[in-house]
């Protein structure tokens, strides 16, 4: 009996090669390219360490300082995109919540109260975005385009366009932007939050619900998932991540401003899409988000290291975005 079944099974399903299996993963293609790119960079920097300082401590520090801001916002955006929505207002959330943190601290409250206030404001913003989107049934692109304008001016009203200096206690500075055994703490936070996102997405019911709601909201509703609540949770998560990125970034530069963060939301979306997250929802992975965000800065870094003129920066980022997504589309069609 058993052998017959096994025989039938072995003829029906041909074992896929490991390459096919990797590429069937949402982030398969981009991770292969990523590994290839890293390998090339490492080889070149080992061969000509003086011309191409990819592995130098300074360069690694620059990269690990630059990646987390985009990476953490992309983690939030990615989970939201998996549940089928966008958030264009993360730039405003970033500015407003980090400013509120600095404001609280400058008013004499402990710094952790400031952080809590920042996160609370972000949660409220996320809830408002989610509530309007879900209960009025309008596309989140529109909702968050509207709230982008609203919260941006809210941030300006709070700040009166005055920058605020931030001199946090040393332990807080060390915990957020310090160096621990040669590694930037921001990067550690990024990895921790990526791990947390992975746990939510792959080891918690909420993650299942995100995928279900993004893939097919009707079906998700039919099997008893509370679609509105799930989507609102995703919006809140996205806003929380934007606030976290804001707290880390402001602690590093020590000055809080509420200048509009142009393009932050589009860069986060681009990083997610490069990492294999479907714009329409229901497909994606945390590995993809992380790789997408790292790729974004890797391209910039390599161009700077190769001493190419500055205008290649945006040019290549644009080309890489389109190229990465094309590959993902090809993968979706084939597997």
């Amino acid at each position: 009996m058993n052998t017959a079944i096994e025989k039938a099974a072995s003829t029906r399903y041909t074992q896929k090669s490991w390459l096919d299996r990797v590429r069937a993963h949402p982030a398969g293609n981009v991770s292969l390219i990523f590994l290839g790119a890293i390998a090339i960079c490492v080889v070149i920097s080992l061969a000509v360490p003086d011309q191409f300082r990819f592995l130098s401590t300074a360069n690694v520090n620059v990269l690990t300082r630059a990646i987390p801001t985009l990476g953490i916002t992309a983690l939030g955006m990615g989970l939201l995109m998996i549940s089928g929505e966008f958030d264009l207002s993360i730039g405003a959330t970033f500015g407003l919540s980090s400013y509120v943190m600095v404001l609280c601290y400058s008013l004499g409250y402990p710094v952790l109260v400031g952080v809590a206030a920042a996160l609370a404001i972000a949660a409220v913003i996320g809830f408002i975005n989610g509530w309007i989107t879900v209960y009025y049934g309008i596309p989140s692109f529109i909702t968050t385009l509207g709230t982008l304008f609203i919260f941006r001016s809210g941030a300006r009203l709070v700040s009166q366009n005055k920058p605020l200096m931030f001199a946090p206690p040393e332990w807080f500075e060390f915990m957020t932007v310090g160096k621990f055994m040669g590694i930037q703490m921001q990067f550690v936070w990024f990895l921790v939050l990526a791990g947390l996102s992975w746990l939510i997405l792959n080891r918690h019911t909420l993650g299942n619900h995100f995928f279900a709601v993004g893939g097919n909201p009707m079906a998700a509703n039919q099997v008893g998932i509370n679609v509105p609540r799930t989507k609102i949770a995703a919006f809140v998560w996205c806003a929380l991540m934007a606030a976290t990125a804001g707290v880390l970034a402001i602690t590093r530069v020590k000055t809080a401003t509420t200048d509009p963060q142009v393009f932050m939301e589009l860069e986060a979306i681009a990083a997610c899409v490069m990492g294999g997250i479907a714009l329409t929802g229901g497909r994606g992975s945390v590995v993809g988000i992380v790789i997408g965000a790292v790729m974004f800065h890797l391209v910039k870094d390599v161009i700077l290291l190769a001493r190419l003129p500055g205008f290649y920066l945006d040019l290549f980022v644009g080309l890489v975005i389109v190229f990465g997504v094309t590959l993902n589309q090809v993968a979706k069609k084939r597997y």
Partner: protein
Amino acid sequence: MTTTPKALGPTATDTQAIASAASTRYRTQNRRQKFMRNASANIAILSVLILAGTIGATIAYPDTFNFYTTGNLSVLAQQIPVIAIMAIGAGLLMIAGEFDLSLAGVYTVCPFLAALAFTQWGWPFLPAIAMSFLTAALIGATIGFVVNRLRVPSFIASLGMMFVLRGIVRGISISSSTGQPGAISLKPPVWFEWLMAGHLWGPFYMQTLWLAVFGVGAWYLLNRHVFGNHVFATGGDPEAAEKNGIRTKQTKLVAFMICSICSAFAGLMQATRINIIDPGQTLTGLELQAIAACVIGGTYLFGGRGSVLGITLGAVLLVTVENILLLIRAPGEFMPVFIGTIIIVSVILNMNVGAAAGRRRY
């Protein structure tokens, strides 16, 4: 035995039967419902309200509320067309079911190239202008190609194009003297300056006329030309359109090109008026404003629904509200609050009132 040939068309009794069937099937709609089914219904109501509000305020405070002065109206007449022409292009594309986030890039790159060719490379003026429009068409065609052939969502394709254009602007705007990106001024001949930004009469400028030309042109294209049918069909239901023999990919490609050309024209118009093109224009969020104008004007975000009147009124509303807030000396921070609220409220209205009036629900 002879049989009478069967009547080719419907007979009188048939027609009657069809009419009676139709009258029982479809509830006749009263005038209000018919009006509300129009894509631009809400924005029209909103515009009338604003009009009434400004007239009321002018009567109440004739000395302090200077909305209806030639000076203020001419400011509006020069500012509105720029955003409105971009919004018309973006709206046409949105009706066809696609986005373009590279508008601000095209708006900057194309006039910049024209200025560069004319002032620095020594080209004659007309070829320089023609080249900038060709570039716009090429940019649109490139996005269309990436969307059609490589199946990249237009959101991403145009976002990528936006980065590319930002890079190009940065590259070509590096001045030889400072080595830094800098602004350039387009020094057009007098006739061109008049054609693009000349003063006609009272508060009317050539820009206003151009807006009328583009508006009527787009209206003709959408509502009186077969291409418009294709655009609506492509955006509404691509598969059905494809099965009806509409070449949806070609339609989208043309829509992308029209959209880019509209932004290039708006950029050229603005560049002629203020006589300077700043590379920083790519970062002003113009693409989101154009999309906001379309959406406020009742264009459906995912295609298949919209009107030129609504889009134009949407752009008018955006600029007018900003103008009124300046006039009543509201703090600058309030401006975006109003835009944001209008966007959300108008879409909610479009959806709810539309559903009540038998309009397609979101």
